[in-house]
């Protein structure tokens, strides 16, 4: 099975929004990257500095987040992975509170308890998890609850191509299909699961081929093409909203940076071509060429994004450190 393919031309406003979302994400990720590394030297001490711990950034994967989340409303749920920022931003998670959480501050989404892999924003039904593929099952439950209360809200579960070989993936797809839950499964195929290349993890060339095993539509988008993602996600979300059940969407995307910050990527043969494959300049050029953007609006979008990120980081660093005396709070409600 596959989605009906419709190659309709997107409205200019939609294109601009997609571009803006990608720029906002990149702007955030670049800033977090530089904040993260700012005070970890000499050498590199993972636990040191204003942002300690593991840091998984999503530069290059913006087309997935932008293209999928463009179809969502705040009442729709999204569960993301250990690499969550791009999806969070695209789905409207409060950027300042997210930054504060990443900085481990009291003003963070989780008052500094969660950290960058554990971002929860109930206002937009967003969550993520550091355990591979284990964000899928909760998305089923959100979808279940949405259907229970009526309306046409949906849940989107994002996962990596490496994660698609975890048992939770299989169980979740089957159960979602069986109960016709309004879920969209999105696989970000960035070629790598840490250092393991996709052909060394996955017996099949496209996860879309696995959809047939659950009698659901499956589609793979090539070339990290944000408009193609937008179109395919639109079909999948519409299907879910219409009560027709779940769909699986795989996007061939790009991990521009290391798996986590500090990853030497010595295992990686494709590094030389990464910059050329950056989806944002490509899309910018396309929109410029099509006359949908001009140099002024490109600059404006960049400036707005930088300002937004600046405000978020300013909020974060202004927020107090959590009080160690309250370290054991929030275990139970």
């Amino acid at each position, binding site marked *: 099975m596959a989605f009906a393919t419709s190659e309709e031309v997107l409205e200019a406003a939609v294109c601009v929004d997609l571009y803006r979302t990608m720029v906002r994400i990149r702007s955030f990720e670049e800033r977090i990257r530089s904040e993260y590394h700012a005070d970890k030297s000499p050498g590199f001490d993972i636990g040191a500095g204003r942002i300690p711990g593991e840091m998984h950034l999503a530069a290059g994967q913006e087309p997935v987040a932008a293209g999928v989340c463009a179809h969502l409303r705040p009442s729709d*749920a999204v569960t993301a992975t250990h690499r969550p920022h791009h999806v969070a931003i695209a789905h409207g998670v409060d950027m300042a509170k997210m930054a504060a959480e990443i900085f481990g501050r009291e003003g963070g989404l989780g008052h500094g308890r969660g950290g960058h892999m554990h971002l929860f924003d109930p206002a937009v039904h967003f969550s993520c998890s550091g355990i591979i593929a284990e964000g899928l099952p909760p998305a089923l439950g*959100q979808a279940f609850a949405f259907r229970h*209360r009526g309306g046409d809200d949906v849940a989107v579960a994002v996962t990596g191509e490496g994660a698609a070989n975890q048992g939770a993936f299989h169980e979740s797809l089957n159960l979602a299909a069986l109960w016709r839950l309004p879920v969209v499964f999105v696989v970000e195929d960035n070629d790598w699961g840490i250092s393991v290349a996709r052909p060394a993890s996955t017996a099949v060339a496209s996860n879309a081929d696995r959809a047939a095993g659950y009698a659901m539509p499956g589609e793979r988008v090539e070339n990290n093409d944000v408009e193609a993602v937008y179109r395919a996600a639109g079909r999948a979300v519409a299907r879910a909203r219409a009560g027709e059940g779940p769909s699986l969407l795989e996007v061939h995307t790009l991990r521009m940076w290391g798996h986590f910050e500090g990853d030497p990527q010595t295992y990686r043969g494709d590094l030389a071509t990464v910059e050329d494959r950056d989806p944002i300049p490509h899309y910018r050029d396309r929109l410029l060429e099509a006359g949908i953007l001009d140099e002024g609006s490109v600059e404006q979008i960049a400036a707005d994004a930088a300002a937004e990120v600046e405000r978020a980081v300013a909020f974060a660093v202004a927020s107090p450190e959590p009080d160690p005396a309250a370290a054991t709070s929030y275990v139970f409600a």
Partner: protein
Amino acid sequence: MTVVDQPTSRSPAVPPRRLTMAKAMVEGIASEMERDPSVFYLGEDVGAYGGIFSSTTGLLERFGPERVRDTPISETAFMGLATGAAVEGLRPIVELMFADFFGVCMDQISNHMAKIHFESGGNVKVPVVVTSAVGGGYSDAAQHSQCLWGTFAHLPGMKVVIPSNPADAKGLMIAAIRDDNPVVYLFHKGAMGLPWMSKTHRALGEVPSEAYETPIGKAVVARSGRDVTVATVSLSVHHALDVADEVAADGIDVEVLDLRTLVPLDREAIVESVSRTGRLVVVDEDYHSYGMSGEVIATVVERDPSLLVAAPVRVAVPDVPIPYARALEQAVLPTPERIRAAIHAVTR
């Protein structure tokens, strides 16, 4: 397995009613399902079958397939589904058919369900009840006889309740459903009063008809005594009471403390009892090491080692998988014989 029982007498003219633990548990679930439309039950064979251990008998008929849902054998998916549904305001009860199966879905329980409230800085609540059958004694062997409450209780973020009798089974169920936290509710097959399993004469008990909560986190003195405290949970409470009756003849006055909840543990009740008796036996159908028995002993001595006038004794499964053959299984379970020997040892 189900052999059809007589329907429970519900005539208000003849109180007190005596129910099995299974029926009391179902009554607790049903009363909350009636009261609160956000409560639903899901798991394997909980619908038409009514629960392999009768944990849901009659619920499908009463509440329909939307609220009493059979699942595929996909514990990770449906545990996580319960979590997600709870996050969005429903109150799922989700059954793991045997606690022994925890290992196929423990990530969803201990890393997700139990931690989300904390990780979200209190912004997200996860009101799920995880029900599961525990315990051996009927030759179901190494993968279907474990108690494993020590495993659940060791990991933060979930409460752990273990009713030993029908009244607590109902009251703890209602309390668990109303609790805004994940609560693991472990019921012992041998205490459910199932018609197809040999049972203790204590299997039936009085159960008030109205809804009530048994407080989570409170132990109860099931029998008060002066000479030795037997701290325990679940089916072993019955054995301890039986043995207490017996050794009373030898002049030993046993106090039986039913812990009822492992998380939060009622440490005060333990210390208070032992400070009166000076002697402690812990009976634990879970494995001996790194579990409940050690925790209870440590709870006493970290308060004051001199509370104990004799070395405490543990009666637990001696760190061995549960054997199949009856004689072998009986040798490793905390049988009345072993409990009696421990009481004698500690009061010698």
